[in-house]
């Protein structure tokens, strides 16, 4: 047990120092990521102006006030920052293609666990580095929020973020393992990224969709990567609905954990170790 812990600690430490190389990049890149919010701030202002000018007295669109919309977009950044796994699936597919993956087959280390720790290190560093820019942006935009939510909501929010990280990791890892069967998966991954951008609610809160499409997008797990945590924080999902949401998210995590394990198990059998 101690040997295993020491091993995992080493893995974590190596990945940490690897990630710390590009410090300035992180800070600048993170700030730049928030630029589209500027457009959204002006866009939704104009949209609400348009609604008001048409004579409708509606102060809300699909249950969201102007401030809610902007707060929503800002919150999706937290969800996405945790749940997006840049390079995970494509890196995995590349390792399979060029043969690097066989180190996991030979060495006494579990590939999924190793990758998870590497990602955890990545996220830890990302958040330490990004804490300042994130805090700055949220401080500047504090006017769009109506204070902190109550403790239960906050706890549910944190739980949904942790699960968003796990779910994002497992979905990407499962996708990457398709590389055991197909040599080139980069186009497939790009298509997935596009779909995920739309369906996870990064583009807009899913509540503004017509009912049918809302039902569809709520049935697939992508909403948990960005929409769900943000909607929880804003109090749009509460009570029994919230409990169910978290439970279903947990079920999806179990599902993808099984899927990733199964894909690795059968993939490793199928694997023919190209690349010497």
């Amino acid at each position, binding site marked *: 047990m101690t040997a295993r812990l020491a091993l995992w600690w080493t893995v974590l430490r190596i990945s940490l120092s690897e990630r710390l190389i590009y410090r300035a990049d992180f800070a600048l890149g993170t700030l*730049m990521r928030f630029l589209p919010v500027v457009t959204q701030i002006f866009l939704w202002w104009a949209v609400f102006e348009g609604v008001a000018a048409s004579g409708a007295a509606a102060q809300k669109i699909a249950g969201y006030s102007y401030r809610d919309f902007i707060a929503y977009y800002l919150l999706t950044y937290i969800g996405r920052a945790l749940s997006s796994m840049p390079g995970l699936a494509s890196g995995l597919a590349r390792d399979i293609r060029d043969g690097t993956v066989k180190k996991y087959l030979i060495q006494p280390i579990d590939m999924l666990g190793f990758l998870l720790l590497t990602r955890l290190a990545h996220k830890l560093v990302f958040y330490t580095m990004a804490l300042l820019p994130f805090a700055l942006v949220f401080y500047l935009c504090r006017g769009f929020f109506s204070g902190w939510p109550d403790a239960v909501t906050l706890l549910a929010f944190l739980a949904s973020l942790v699960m968003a990280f796990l779910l994002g990791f497992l979905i990407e890892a499962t996708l990457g393992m398709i590389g055991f069967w197909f040599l080139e998966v980069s186009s497939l991954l790009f298509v997935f990224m596009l779909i995920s951008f739309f369906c996870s609610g990064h583009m807009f809160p899913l509540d503004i969709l017509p009912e049918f499409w809302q039902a569809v997008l709520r049935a697939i797990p992508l909403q948990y990567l960005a929409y769900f945590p943000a909607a929880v924080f804003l109090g749009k999902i509460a009570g029994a609905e919230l409990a169910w949401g978290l439970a279903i998210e947990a079920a999806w995590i179990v599902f993808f954990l099984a899927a990733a394990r199964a894909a690795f198990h059968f993939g490793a059998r199928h694997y023919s170790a190209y690349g010497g």
Partner: protein
Amino acid sequence: MTAFLSYLRVLATFARNSFVRDMTFRGNFLIEAVTSLGWASMNLAFYVLIFRYTPMIGAGTGWGRYEFFLFFATGLLISSLVQTFFMTNADELSDLIRLGGLDFILLKPMDTQFLVSLKRIDWSSLPNFAVGAALLAYALVELHYAPGPTEILLYPLYLACGVVIYYSLMMTMAAATVWMGRNLTLLDFWFYLTNFNRFPMEIYGGPYGLPLRWLLTFIIPVLVVVNVPAEILLRPLRPEMPRDWLLPAFTLLATAASLALSRWTFQRAIASYRSASS
């Protein structure tokens, strides 16, 4: 004249070679075309959603649903042209310099910027042009409006201006990354800059919006790229109204200035090229 003809011939060869290359990997070509169409339709879906709730973006701006579709179509036409001809090339510039591949291009008896800018043409971005054209026609039909001959002549001219401004900004940034080191990629900056053009410039109002609009019009002329041609096609030009021709006139100036800037930056970048790994 013969020089011009030989440039045209080289361009045709680039186009043919790129096409042959695209057709070698047909499946990949198809997927790329589908994804770029997918991105455009996702954006369109978002706009359709917005117009479910409001008849107009901004009060009294005149940007109703079909006016806005025309705006979006114009943006699509311009960005599809930029992606087809320049995007891949600008993206590869820093690699060319870092890995020393520029040597081979410098040796050729032609303008280096021309060769670098057009050597790889990405045909899979062109379907978006067709979608843009179709959407434009649809918007005009729904608006029950037929632009006059002046507007029809000016529209392609300003589309071209938009393409040139986008190209110049892209090339300037690509060339500038040479000095900055290459960890933040050009494409990132590019996405964030063009993001401001997803909506009409009228939305940038108020104490924070107006300075931003000025900055993005007069210092970095991004906003004129889509707004000016879209406005020209939307309503008849009234020569007696300064508002109608001031910005278009400025756009011509901005086009020339940004092209000159890209030329200057590119040449400075080439001058400090040290032929890294050869």
